[in-house]
């Protein structure tokens, strides 16, 4: 699903017009990004939580180049989906 298609689906239900809804949509995600940057964490109920994890530096072997490489540390955004979502997604499998 695309961003535009998502907005198209949402603004029909909402009291805002398309442009308005689009701008609000973008603003919401901007704020989520900001909060993740600031607090390294943001939780959306019944959807999931975004958090920042640090991957420590480590040495890996590159068998193609036959060399040992040292990877630098890295801060990574991690999304942990809510249980209800995972359940709903895996409903078909059950």
């Amino acid at each position, binding site marked *: 699903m695309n961003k535009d298609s998502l907005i198209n*689906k*949402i603004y029909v239900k909402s*009291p805002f017009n398309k442009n308005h809804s689009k701008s609000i949509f973008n*603003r919401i*995600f901007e704020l989520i990004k900001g909060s993740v940057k600031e607090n390294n964490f943001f939780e959306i109920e019944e959807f999931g939580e*975004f958090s920042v994890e640090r991957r420590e530096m480590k040495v890996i072997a590159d068998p193609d180049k036959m060399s040992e490489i*040292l990877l630098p540390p890295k801060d990574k*955004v991690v*999304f942990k989906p809510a249980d209800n979502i995972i359940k709903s*997604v895996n409903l078909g499998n059950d």
Partner: protein
Amino acid sequence: MTKEQLIKKIAREYSVDEIDVSNYFESIFETINAAFIKNKNVNISEFGKFVLRTKTGTGGIKTKTISFSPSKKFALEINYNFSDLVPVKIKTLDEKSLREEYYEPTDADEVILIESEGDVVDNEIDEKNDFLFSQLSENLKSRFLNEHFADDLINNDTPRVKTEVIPGIPVGEKEIPEISAPEQLTREQEENKIGIEPEDKNISSEENIPVVLIPEEVINGENIPDTIIPEEIITEKGETELSEPEPLTVKSDDTVQEETQKEDFTTFTRQKETSSKAQTVFSDAEMLLIELKKIKEKEKDKIIYDKIDEEKKQQDIIDEQDPVPVISDWETVKSKAKIRTEEEKALEEELERMLEEREKILTEIKQLESDSQKIIRIESLINAFSKTSDDLLKVSSKPVKPKKEFTIEENVKAHDESFEDKLRSLLEPSVPDVSAPQDVFIQPDVSASQDVFVPPVVITPQDVSDLQEESTLPDVSAPPDSLKSFDISDLNLPQDVFIEESEDGKKDIENAEMKIFDKLIEEHFASEPPEIKPDRSLELLEEQYDNLIKPSEQEPVLFTPEKQMESVIPEEPEAEIESFEEKKEDLSRFLKPDTGLDSLKEQFDDLTITEKPDEIIIPERLEDAFVNIELPEEFSKAERTFFEKDKIEKENAVRNYNDIFKSVESYKPKAVQPAKITEEPKKTLKKKKSMKKLIIPIIILLILGVIIIVMSRPNPSALQDDVLVTTGTNENKTDANKNEKNSDAESIKTKDVPADVDKIIYEDNGVYFKQNSLGVFIQVGTYLSEKEAKIKAFLLKTQKFNADVEKISLGKNDFRYRVKIGPYPDLDAAKASFETMKK
């Protein structure tokens, strides 16, 4: 920021109701959820991508999860702390090292490790440790050990003893209560995982107790605590909880073997964990090593730079000892250089002077040479004069003695000697030599006399150069002392000759000279001179040339037209040519080119005169000429046939050509026609005229006949029929349409009957009763189309009426079709049938 804060902020920013915003917010994630349920990935630009992934869990159960990959911009914003760092290549690996360090051991490998009592891994790690730590400093070693092995190793130096201790149980107690280890795997499970069959299957669950390494001192030492300090159990949340003290019991001797096995296993697991930790430590250590290396390199660089500086300093010191010339010193050097240059200049000037002097000397030498020549001449003259004068004086008194004359050869020889010798030789009397070479001459003195033959003196440049080379004079520029001191007075010349300077004296001298030269010449020629043969080469050449030009009898005759003619035509004696005309004729005959045509013409003329042929055919073309050639008998058959074929073809070609020529001529306007030819066309003209006369009346008659026929044709019944057609067709059309499908109507045959054959007897409402030679007919109707007529006739026939169709022509392509019933014997019978038909 929480969800509520976010909603409030947006509501404030956009001045919208919070409820609407919250609804909007929820609807966003609801739709995203719905997309996940539909197995759709969601891509939100400038934020990230939610991707559904399937994972195979334990027991091969597949579960779907959602992973989030942030957009590049978002990821960079998050990773701003380490965005500058780049992965670094530490070292290159061999295949062996790759396998050793990064080879993930399989179950089989683990089995081997256990069989070797877990020492292999330990040793390996230790070796690795040693290898790495050997390069590290002690401080670094301690630091890393404290950081990473603080929990596992109490002291690196203390020997480790593997003992099984139940946490929280006092050591002194012998009996240990059975405690289950819920978190750890059972031995059976472990063995199954590893693939080892347990040696003793009767191992109870109480054996699966976690093992803690305790230093030997703690166990064997005196300071054994009654109870082990309760361990800090770290929960998942990070909170520490103190476990309650539990009684410690030591196991019985029956289960020693099992315990040892258990110990091995636990140690192995522990070692594995430690190895994983160690690897991370090693990586850090290696990083530090790299840094250290860099530092060392820098230090090395520093050392090198220091060395360079020291060298520079040393150089400075050396320079101080041997200083470079100061500016003032440089000036002296420059001045020296200048001095040198001045010296050089002086030398150059001297050289130039020398060269100039040399040139001057050379010019002087040349002048001297010329002067010397003059002097030689003068001296020779003087010498001659002196001798002659002496002789003259002696002639009167004494008999003539053989004179000593100045010879040219001597003079030339004198050139080779020095100046003084030359002069002396000149002064001395010399014997004349007639055999002197003639090609060396001395220029005669014109002033002497014109009659006296004095051979010219020719001094070649070679002689001059030889003289220059051979002359031993050191300084040619400076004349020799002898010459400087030379004076004419030194010569023993008669004083009178030079003293008397008057005109008379001059004349006398001239006369004397003349006399002397005459005498000299006489004497010279008196002695028999060698006979010089005249050069006859030119004469010989001339003779040869003449011989070449003049034709000799023996020489071959050159090919010239005249000579050819002479050779062809016999020469006639000139005496026989009497008249001029004859000569002219002869000449013309000779001059004219002899061609074959002339001879042929002559022959022809002869023939004309003597034997006139019947007809002389001169072929216009060469081809025609070849046609008439009669082949000799010598030709073979094949050749004959070939020539005959050619003949025929050429004859044909000629004929064709002649025909064409004739045909062309026939088209030419004929001025006078022969009488015979004019008679025949007249007859034909007459015939034609008569035919015309006949044809015209015939045509007129035919036209008239046609007109009559046409005029006689018009029939009133036909006209009536036309009226009938218009009336009757409409009525019958309906009937005809009804029976269109009936194909039997076509079987009725039409009869071509002239229109004016029948006569109308009676009429009843458009139905005509006509009488004919056959009888009376009822004309039911007339139709334009034959088909309709036939259908009508057929219908009538079905009603048992004898109906027929008649075709009537009213003009070109104008036909009518009448339907008739009959014939009836009379009109009454016809009427009766008509009434029945009406019914």
